């Protein structure tokens, strides 16, 4: 009697959240999934929707441009998340030291992350500007370049420049999580390791890094998922160009959907990108779980 009422109560309480979730996530997701098996197009004149089975998927998987976009996305993800991880942990280790003004620095370091992605992208586009960009000016004055360059107008450098802007914005998040984790490392562990003869490097690799691995993995997973879906920074900075050199998978989906208005085929790309993300998450999840079993004291 009581148990049944409790059960009903549970569903009543959950209902608003489920409803919102259904409206903004589940229904569009199901709709996208359905669309991916059709030849739907966005057009002013409604045309009959035809179920075409796996045709979109076969096309997507054999489309060399989409494959290249995937490789680009992978490159972007690995390099930017990798750099964010290394830079984030390094900065966290520095900020974890006690020096004059360390509290102020800790507060300041979060600023790049607090800036909206679009603002960050616009700022970096200005920094990279071929005529009056700060980067050109800095490198020129240092004598490292002899002429101003178009950093994001050159297919050879554009992707790395976008990555730099992305790293700048996102490494503080990693640094913050790492710093919080570093503050929980018991001082005795490092003392014990020092007495056992371990130098700073050995202590970092054997004691500190394993200790902060759990929280670090969480933020790295989040960053990987975000990086794999990268869209806004590319949309603002390069629009996928020049010569498709920064056209990532999400951007490709966007174009298929909203530029070429092939929503059926675009949906199949989107499902594929989501699928790859899911695999990445699973991979991280299992390795984080393995780490966690070792790192809990």
């Amino acid at each position, binding site marked *: 009697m009581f148990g049944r009422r409790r059960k009903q109560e549970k569903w009543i309480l959950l209902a608003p959240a489920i409803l919102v979730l259904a409206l903004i996530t589940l229904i569009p997701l199901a709709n996208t999934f359905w669309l991916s098996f059709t030849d739907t197009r966005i057009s002013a004149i409604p045309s009959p929707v035809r179920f075409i089975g796996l045709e979109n998927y076969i096309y997507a998987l054999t489309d060399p441009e989409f494959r290249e976009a995937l490789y680009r996305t992978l490159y972007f993800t690995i390099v930017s998340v990798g750099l964010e991880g290394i830079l984030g942990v390094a900065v966290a280790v520095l900020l974890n030291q006690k020096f004059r003004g360390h509290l102020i620095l800790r507060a300041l370091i979060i600023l790049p992350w607090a800036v909206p992605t679009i603002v960050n992208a616009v700022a970096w586009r200005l920094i990279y500007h071929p005529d009056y960009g700060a980067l050109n000016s800095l490198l020129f004055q240092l004598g490292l370049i002899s002429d101003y360059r178009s950093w994001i107008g050159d297919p050879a450098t554009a992707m790395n420049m976008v990555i730099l802007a992305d790293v700048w914005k996102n490494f503080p998040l990693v640094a913050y999580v790492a710093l919080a984790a570093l503050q929980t490392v018991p001082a005795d562990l490092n*003392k014990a390791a020092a*007495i*056992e003869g371990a130098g700073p490097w050995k202590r970092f690799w*054997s004691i500190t890094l394993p200790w902060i691995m759990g929280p670090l993995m969480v933020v790295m997973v989040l960053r990987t998922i975000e990086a794999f879906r990268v869209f806004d920074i590319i949309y603002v900075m390069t629009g996928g160009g020049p010569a498709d050199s920064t056209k990532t998978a999400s951007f490709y989906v966007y174009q298929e959907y909203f530029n070429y208005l092939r929503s059926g085929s675009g949906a199949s790309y989107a499902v594929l990108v989501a699928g790859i993300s899911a695999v990445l998450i699973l991979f991280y999840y299992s390795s984080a779980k393995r780490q966690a079993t070792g790192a809990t*004291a």
Partner: protein
Amino acid sequence: MPENQILSVESLQKTYGDVHVLKDINVAMEPGEFLVLVGPSGCGKSTLLSCISGLTEVSSGTIRIAGRDCTHMEPANRDIAMVFQSYALFPNMSVERNIGFGLEVRKVAEAEKKAKVSEVADLLKIEHLLQRRPAELSGGQRQRVAMGRALVRDPKLFLFDEPLSNLDAKLRVTMRTEIKRIHQATGASIVYVTHDQIEAMTLATRIVVMKDGVVQQIGTPHEIYNKPVNAFVADFMGAPSMNLMKGKATPEEGHIRLEIPTPQGRSVSLIDRKTPSQSFRNGPQDVLIGLRPEAMTDQKLSNGSALQSAECLLEVVEPAGADTYAVIHLGETEAIARLSADAPVQAGEMSSITFDLSKVSYFDISSGNRL
């Protein structure tokens, strides 16, 4: 400075800003000694250990380990090992790797490392735990692993920082015995910090009693217990602690007469025949009379002439199993007498208490120093 000293601390000072934590510490130790630093919290004993380990920089003075000046040496180079109160086991490593960590850092060959780890594991009876992680161990097992990590490198000097404080009372007694056994088996030189005076008494070959950053007394447990240099040491060491009763000592022919006032308005009068009357050549003097609870009893003790009896009012009676403690108001303090377990006594009654004056100590009332 004798060459064979394993540790010598000379004129050691440590200050943090205006706070003077260690004041002119001088301690020396022979190989194989079990030196216990004991004192109330904040007395500087852990700071002293930390200075010896090199984890804390000294302000001035010298620290020598096995004859080498280590004052400004890195901890890793001092040839020491340390056991922490928190055990400080590396959570991401197996027990085996924890114990072998120091050898791993020193790039000892795998086979030799394995042999040494297994030897130590055998000594500590933890062979079956080698593949486990610290999180899977009980407190006592972690303690053993921490000791294993210290023992495996066979260092010149072992430092123990309150190693038993995180264990429950029963396990603490077991591990105390274990530590003593290991000390006897290995002949290791150990500096051991504790706030627990029973640990100090049971483990030490010599005890260093500290208070407010100053060494109060260094001596064997027997010396510390029977001849405390001041009222602080007398009070701190022993449980229950020494009774320090205000009274008057009057030198008379060949003996000293003691008068200890009671709240009932009369005095307990005792004769001390052991202490020479010249000790109080300035005539009658107000002193603190120090007697251990076991020197105030209902039993017929065997050292004849030192025994005195007096009728005392028992205010509280506390049976403690093996003994019964009775609180007696004597010399403006609550003195504790240790009676036999089956003593037919009741709170609120007068009872005859036997005082054993062969072990009496006298302390100056104002300075607290031994007279």
